[in-house]
């Protein structure tokens, strides 16, 4: 059983609201922990945050294969956000791949993003994907629930392994697919999966490569094949390293943020609740959930995401599954 009292925990949450980085770090760790006995306290924390916090985060997904410069771009965009809106608080969550053998990971994105360390408005956290497919970690959603109340902008950088990186669409409000100048063949190859999820494209390293223009046009023509309406999606040309072309990307993001009306997590919660049920109880679990009218309804009726998890665990106990 937890030894920290509820007051101690809420103290910690207060400190996170005043921007104390180590407290934020601890709160994130708490939400990475999926032990059932923590459900209750998480529920209380979220409740508390809902009342106390004035922040509601906008999630930007940054995806693309390794080496295209996602980290540099993310770092530069985060700093740009602060330039144009000095009141904002920004979080970066960077996902790295874990070793298939040992399970350990090298969390290396921090190396590539150099942020001013005494800048209290930016928070950077790494997460290992822990051999999870889909480009995110098992805990990304759970952690994003607290980030949502602590920050105004949350950049999530995916692992970048390739086509199956589509999990980000269930968390991000808008997704940037970062490309670097490459040959047309590769774009063709990427048609499926990852090419279908972005809301905008960023061609990085625009300054250096002769291939860049070719990439731009190949991409444009490819998009119409993927889905005709995708032809209209913006394609930005930047050099993250040299800080070129970032204003346009930021303008786009700010506009997207202003278009967003619903700063709530309900839909995402429903998706992740269903996913959790599937992981825990398989098809049978999903069947039970369906009998309750589906994830959204189940969460609504139990009162919160955490309470829904708790309640569903007990149903499982009742029917003695498996």
């Amino acid at each position, binding site marked *: 059983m937890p*030894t*920290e009292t509820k007051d101690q925990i809420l103290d910690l949450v207060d400190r996170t609201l005043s921007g104390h980085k*180590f407290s934020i770090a601890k709160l994130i760790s708490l939400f990475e922990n999926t032990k059932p006995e923590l459900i209750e306290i998480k529920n209380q924390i979220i409740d508390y945050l809902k009342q106390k916090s004035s922040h509601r985060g906008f999630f930007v997904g940054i995806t693309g294969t390794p080496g295209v410069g996602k980290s540099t771009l993310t770092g530069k965009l985060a700093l740009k956000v602060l330039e144009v809106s000095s009141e904002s608080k920004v979080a970066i969550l960077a996902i790295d791949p874990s070793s298939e053998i040992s399970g*350990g990971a*090298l969390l290396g994105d*921090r190396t590539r993003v150099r942020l001013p*360390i005494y800048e209290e408005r930016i928070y950077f956290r790494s997460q290992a994907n822990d051999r999870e497919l889909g480009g995110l970690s098992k*805990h990304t959603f759970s952690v994003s629930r607290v980030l949502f109340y602590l920050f105004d902008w949350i950049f999530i950088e995916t692992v970048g392994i390739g086509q199956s990186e589509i999990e980000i669409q269930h968390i991000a409000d808008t997704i940037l697919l970062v490309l670097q100048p490459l040959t047309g063949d590769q774009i063709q190859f990427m048609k499926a999966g990852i090419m279908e999820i972005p809301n905008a494209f960023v061609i990085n390293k625009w300054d250096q490569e002769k291939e860049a223009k070719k990439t731009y046009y190949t991409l444009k023509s490819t998009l119409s094949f993927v889905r005709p309406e995708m032809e209209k999606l913006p394609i930005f040309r930047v050099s993250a390293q040299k800080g070129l072309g970032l204003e346009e990307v930021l303008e786009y993001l700010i506009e997207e943020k202003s278009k967003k009306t619903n700063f709530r997590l309900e839909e995402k919660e429903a998706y992740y609740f269903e996913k959790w049920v599937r992981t825990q109880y398989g098809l049978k679990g999903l069947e039970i959930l369906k009998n309750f009218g589906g994830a959204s309804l189940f969460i609504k009726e139990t009162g919160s995401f955490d309470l829904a998890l708790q309640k569903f665990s007990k149903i499982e106990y009742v029917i003695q599954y498996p």
Partner: protein
Amino acid sequence: MGNKERKRHVLYDENGNPTKDKPWIFRTYAGHTNVWESNKLYRGNLSRGQTGLSIAFDLPTQCGYSSDHPLARPEIGKVGVPINSLDDFHILFDGIPIEEMNTSMTINATSMWLLALYIALAKERGVEVSKLQGTTQNDIVKEYLARGTYIFPPEPSFRLISEMYEYCIVHLPKWNPSNISSYHLQEAGATPVQELAYSLANAIGLLDLIKERGKVSEEQFEMIVGRISFFVNAGIRFIEEMCKMRAFVELWDEITLKRYNVKNPKYRLFRYGVQVNSLGLTEKQPENNAWRILIEALGVTLSRKARCRALQLPAWNEALSLPRPWDQQWSLRLQQILAYETDLLEYPDIFDGSYVIESKVNELKEEAQKEIQKILDMGGIRVALETGYIKSQLVRSMSERMSKINSGEIIVVGVNKWTDGLPSPLQAGDGGIFKVDPESAKRTLEALEKTKKNRNPKKVREALEYLKECARNGENLMPASIECALARVTTGEWADALREIFGEYRPPTGIEGQRLFLEDAKVTNIRNRVEDFTKQKGHRPRIVVGKPGLDGHSNGAEMIAVAARHCGFDVIYSGIRLTPQEIVHSAIEEHADILGLSIMSGSHLELVEQVMEELKKHHAFSEIPVVVGGIIPQKDFDKLYEMGVKRIFTPSDYHLIEIMEKIMDIIEESQKEKVLI
């Protein structure tokens, strides 16, 4: 004369008379504390029969910071002499006739600056600049890969080196503007083949660039090829090392002939100096190192055709601390005995005609050629650096080596075998270690202040502006640097001016995708402990590995990072030269379960103190345990424990998995009170 009676075992001179070779240059890599102390040291060494100077600079000087920079303060005079301005050079060389000296400077990113100071010194002394002889190490490749005192990105760094060649070939014809160093590659784990391939590819990259720039005539280019010299490592496998040297000689001759069409055989000679291996020197039973050094010296002197031009030997106690003057004298005596007491210098090459040696040399050559071709196909040395290819090859070799020592496949006497021994009387008395007097830095800082006060600020400003102007418009930076030196610009100011134009660089760490070559019960056991922890805490144990300060010897940190990941940890390692504040910041944001610091520069007390202060500032001091690894003398242990360090690892802790077990112990212990978070 009696040509018909020539004996094959006798060495003859040009006139056919029996002769004997001249010995190589004896060097001792030296310099510490401040310019006054180092001057005394050099004069002492010269009076004892040393024939050249080899100057060690402190880390701030190497990284382009003046002594009064916050990053510099803990490092002043630690691993070499601090040089801030021309005034310092006047004191350093006081009473030493520079026109007669062969001066070797171990300096890289700031080479141009130190050479400019040396030229300015000659000018103010009225010495003819063209008489200056010596070497600036000036090899940026191995700085990115192994040694860590780089400043600028590859492109401007290579430009500085090329410009020094272009300048020296006209004004200082006897100066070696750079010295391709495979030495540090071996220290970073390179195999003989990798040493051959990467250093030759490095030389090719440099010569190709000079050729491409087109600033020198064909005749000058040929002379430049003749000025390329190498700095090589000699390890304990001394037969193979001897063969490596022969392979170097042959490959270099082939490359200079075929690739650069150098007609004069004199310019095709593979000229090299040696420092024997420090990597293999052990902290345990350190007296054994004396034998290791002797054997390693044989590898580079036995074969006449591949004999080094200059030799510097480490001291027996290098794995413990900086050597004392007596330790250096002892190493110098070894060279003197080898050159003057033995008959080594009386014979022609004693390996000519040995089919064993020939076959081994050929094998090394073939493999090296393949690797060189690979790098050339990739686009040359710069591409191989920027993509991290070479670095990851080296980290891989090092992991293999460590794995083999851990499994006992490589035997290290006194470390993983025959570990029981009587205590060494050599370590009695002052413990056999040398420590820089912390007060001595004051004198350096005072001198710097004095220089700044007495100089003409207008001249300083103008000199720096001129330097920046040349940096921008692509003009050779040597003349502007000499102007700066004469105007009493400081080391930090010179480097800052160029940082402004060129930017700073951070190379790949090379540890991505690496693993150990160990899969045994110990590994399984610790992985199980990690899994248990993960179930309990909801995340894998997270370690932040940090290298605070200016010291760039990153092997230790890299191996810990690789080992931790191998055991199932999540690892945050951001490379070298970070401030204590940056490292703590990573540990805070990542909510690290442990913070591991690697410090080899001797500044552990200052740096650990700064780390602890920063942790306190974030209210994390009692929650993030700190361990320290590096060359740390026993007598500092208590002070570090008092500061709050949980555990100290030294070179005698060579078993990576055992280190990880101890780290896991500390993590589990510190988690006991923390049930929830």
